[in-house]
């Protein structure tokens, strides 16, 4: 019944000392934004605009 844990974890770090959010998709793509709505919009667009080498922003 519980969904299998495939380890798909999205992570958003609010960088200390800044207003910047730094997001990491489960695919490895990274992105920065200053607004959580924009951050989740980017995150959930996966795989659109997600470059696993970390140039997603």
């Amino acid at each position, binding site marked *: *019944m*519980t*969904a*299998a*844990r*495939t*380890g*798909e*974890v*999205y*992570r*958003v*770090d*609010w*960088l*200390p000392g800044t*207003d910047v*959010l730094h997001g990491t998709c*489960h695919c490895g793509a990274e992105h920065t934004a*200053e*607004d*959580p*709505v924009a*951050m*989740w919009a980017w995150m*959930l667009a996966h795989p659109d605009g997600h470059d696993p080498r970390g140039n997603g922003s």
Partner: protein
Amino acid sequence: MPHTTAFARNQWYVAAHAHEVGRELLGRTVLGEPLVLYRTEEDGTAVALHDRCVHRRYPLSEAPTRLDGDRIVCGYHGFTYDTTGTCVYVPGQKRVPRTARVASYPVAERDSLVWVWIGDPALADPDAVPRARHLDSPGWVTVRGMEPIDCDYGLLVDNLLDLSHETYLHGGYIGTPEVAETPITTEVDEDAGIVRVGRHMADAECPPFYARSTGLAGRISRRQDIEYHAPCLYLLHSRIAPAGADGDDSRAFRTEITYAITPSADGRVYDFWAVSRDWATDDAEVTEFLRANNHTVVMQDVDALNLLQRSLGAERAGYQELSINIDTGGLAARRILARLAEEGDKPVEPVS
């Protein structure tokens, strides 16, 4: 109704603290479904049945409805139901109509919480109930309560996922300036439906809630690690230690704050709360202090959310919100809830 978060069916929900369910009939409404709960005489198993008699729909949780052994006798004309909801007696005649039964709900009692499954009973898996073992583990002491709030359950989820409100709404209790000032990290485990929000304060004021209970004077390091198992269970792992001694477990105090967020009806939610500790466990004064103090804190939220719901109700449709960094976890929770609600509404797939 404004601000109504869709309900997620085919999920487990906390209907009661274990101690609330006994030989008195208890009425609770979960996801709009009226339930009557009680415990069997024979082995103490918790039972949840639909709280409306099939005859003229008298609420079975209301007097003079009563238990006769493990059977419920409707207080209006005496229809009598067994623990499966089957009607076993009607007055004045021998034949009990075949359709005379009330729905029974799957129940799982775990960690001193009574969970009910709302949805297709065939899909209920008791192993999927998220755990809160500290509530019922040796070496832990818990204070607890439940407050109904007249608000959309989404407002309570929002409230609990963003603890920056502690600084303002709960100043002088659990809030200090550092809570709102400290950046958070947010993690979403998509398939498990878990949102984690962490806030680690290296050097913070000790709020009265902890200063008076632990005796820590001076600055502290304070960690708040939220683990929200959508839709119902919210765990806040709290750890405080003298500032600079963060790595030293022998000087740390761990407190587990548990909430169960159970949607009752549109615009109404049950706020089950508990505070558990594994320190000063035999100090009754600390227990009473934490109970009274946390009740006050919960009531600050209850008052604020009642007010917020009323004021949202007076807004024109399509009002705007503005989210900032502190809302990162709350937004993630909203999205998971929307997904679970959608999945719960889907026609049931055949079980493989």
